[in-house]
């Protein structure tokens, strides 16, 4: 009997196939993740070259850090605004573009194209567009409206960042919703019509339940994505005015890379990780209530 039985050879081939991916996730995900956990227990002075174990001190600082509280509030506003606006707009567009009309392909392409544009290029263009003398205010001026200084107003800055992000990514959710809508069997609508159900009832009783798995998926993607928004903030507002758009990930970047508090920065990343994991878990648990097939 030889060592290389078919079974062993098959196993080896299987392992070889996953090896590159495994190596990648080990080097770029799992090891850094473990290191961040370790850094968060230390005070790391990059310039002085000192690395000192301080136990849970950084975690205690989380509780007393007022700026962190501000940034969590900003993060919550941003996430809530983005999810509500993005999902409702994506669903609306998907429903409109699901009609069998001429020219819908053109509009589908139009709404999806921002997804393909480089994020920084997209944001830089919007920075110009949103200037006090930019084209948005130019357009408003045409209608006799005196537009605000979008990126420097206390509330308009947050709204601007959300809208820029929604327009950038709404196409992706729209395509997912479109696919889901096209998977809803037409006879269900016909039967409901015969029973006398109106447009709204059909949408609420048939469409929403049947596309609920997609709603769950898009909401998870959008919420997790909203917690990772960085380039838009860095380019458009740098966290300002005041700290109104300093979301958690931008605050983390400031602490670690600008203020050189790498240990505390690592602690903030652990916090971000916990928040993302908890939200995802929560949504996953809620699927039993939301999603038709899981009930």
């Amino acid at each position, binding site marked *: 009997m030889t060592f290389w039985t078919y079974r062993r050879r098959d196993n080896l081939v299987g392992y070889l196939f996953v090896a590159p991916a495994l190596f990648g996730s080990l080097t770029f995900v799992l090891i850094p993740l473990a290191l961040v956990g370790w850094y968060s227990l230390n005070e790391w002075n990059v*310039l002085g*070259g000192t690395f000192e174990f301080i136990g849970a001190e950084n975690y205690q600082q989380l509780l007393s850090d007022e700026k962190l509280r501000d940034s969590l509030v900003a993060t919550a506003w941003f996430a809530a605004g983005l999810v509500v606006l993005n999902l409702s707009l994506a669903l609306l567009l998907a429903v409109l573009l699901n009609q069998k009309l001429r020219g819908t392909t053109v509009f589908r392409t139009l709404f999806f194209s921002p997804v393909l544009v480089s994020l920084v290029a997209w944001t830089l263009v919007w920075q110009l567009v949103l*200037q*006090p*003398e930019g084209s948005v205010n130019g357009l408003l001026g045409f209608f006799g409206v005196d537009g605000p*200084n979008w990126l*420097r107003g206390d509330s308009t800055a947050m709204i601007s960042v959300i809208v820029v992000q929604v327009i950038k990514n709404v196409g992706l959710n729209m395509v997912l919703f479109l696919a889901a809508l096209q998977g809803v069997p037409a006879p269900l609508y016909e039967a409901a019509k015969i029973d006398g159900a109106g447009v709204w009832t059909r949408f609420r009783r048939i469409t929403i339940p049947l596309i609920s798995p997609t709603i769950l998926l898009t909401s998870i993607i959008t919420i997790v994505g909203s917690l990772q928004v960085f380039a838009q903030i860095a380019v458009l507002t740098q966290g300002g005015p*005041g700290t109104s758009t300093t979301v958690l990930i931008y605050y983390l970047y400031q602490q670690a890379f*600008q203020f*050189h508090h790498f240990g505390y920065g690592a602690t903030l990343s652990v916090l971000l990780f916990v928040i993302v994991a908890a939200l995802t878990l929560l949504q996953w648990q809620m699927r039993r209530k939301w999603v038709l097939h899981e009930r």
Partner: protein
Amino acid sequence: MSRLLALILAGLLAVTACSGSAASGPKSLRMTVWTANEAHLKLLNEIAAEYKAAHPDVTEIKFDSIPADGYTTTLTTQIAGGNAPDLAWILEESAPDFVSSGALAPIKGKIEKADELTPSATKLWEKDGELYAYPFSTSPFGLFVNTSLVKDVPARWTWDQAIAASAAGKGLVLPDFKYQNWAVLSAIWRGWGANAWSEDGRSCGFSSAEMKDAMSFVHKAIFTDKAIPGPGTTVDFFAGNAAMAISQISRAGALKDAKFTWTLMPLPSGPKGDYAVIGQAGVGVLKRSKNAEAAADFLGFFTNEANSAKLAQFFPSVRSSLLNAQTLAKSNPLIRPEQLQSVVVEGISKGVVKPSHQGQEELNQTIRAALDPLWKPDAQVGAVLDDVCTKIKPLLERK
């Protein structure tokens, strides 16, 4: 047998000798800089080539251009990642952090004629009598005036006159300010005798009466007189779109191909009289560099009298022998000798360096955020400035 032993011993000796020479063998140095200007890099490479010719053990001296925007962040990230350069340019605002943290190697012994460096210019880079970086560029702030737009320019304005003249023209810009880099405003508030913080860095100066007067003046200039473009608008003086600009003298190069006539004046005088503000850049040797010794040696050469004279065409030198209008005029054909005397020579010898403090970046962001409410037409200047002090007090009092 003994012959064999001798042979082995000789062999071992040869091996150790070889490995010994390998340790002091070819060295390559890397210096991070924030300029990507071709003329600057050409000069830097010329100096490096000359040094390499005399020091065959140094095989490469590389100038690594990092964009000025985010320069310090990139530099510290390189250091954190174990990829520290051997030498680095350091902005004045990061000087206290770099000097006090022990990141830099002492260099005084390597600097030629260290005693002729202007003391006010080296202060920022010293600790316990030792020099930790060489202030290779000391660049005073001046008032650039577009004389195609503004006529009848005196030798020196007062601030009221300057604002009135710019409001009548196309406005006064502070190109580096952008309503973010508040430290640039020190080029204005020093005229009122205001300071961001006390000399020892422990108490806040934003709530002082001088600061409130100065900032009220700035606020009025922006929102009432409309002499300074408001937040979010970009106006380029160097393209001829503004009447005046407050900028560092090192920016004069951008006016080489200007389509308009211009002049350079000292900063307007404030209620407290004449004053000058300077920006600085130092170059230091990272202690963690494997070639720290060679790097310090190169720094000594880079900043010696002859090379300082060459560098002075872009970066005003702090060597007293080079700090006179005649020497400066040779390398600054764009600026007249009397302008050089009033702005550069007097600026460097009498000027105050832009504010800097330990933990500067955190202070920068905190002050930037606290000052944001000021940049609105209906702002309460005094209340905003009091709030700045409340916010930065814990940072100033930190050890």
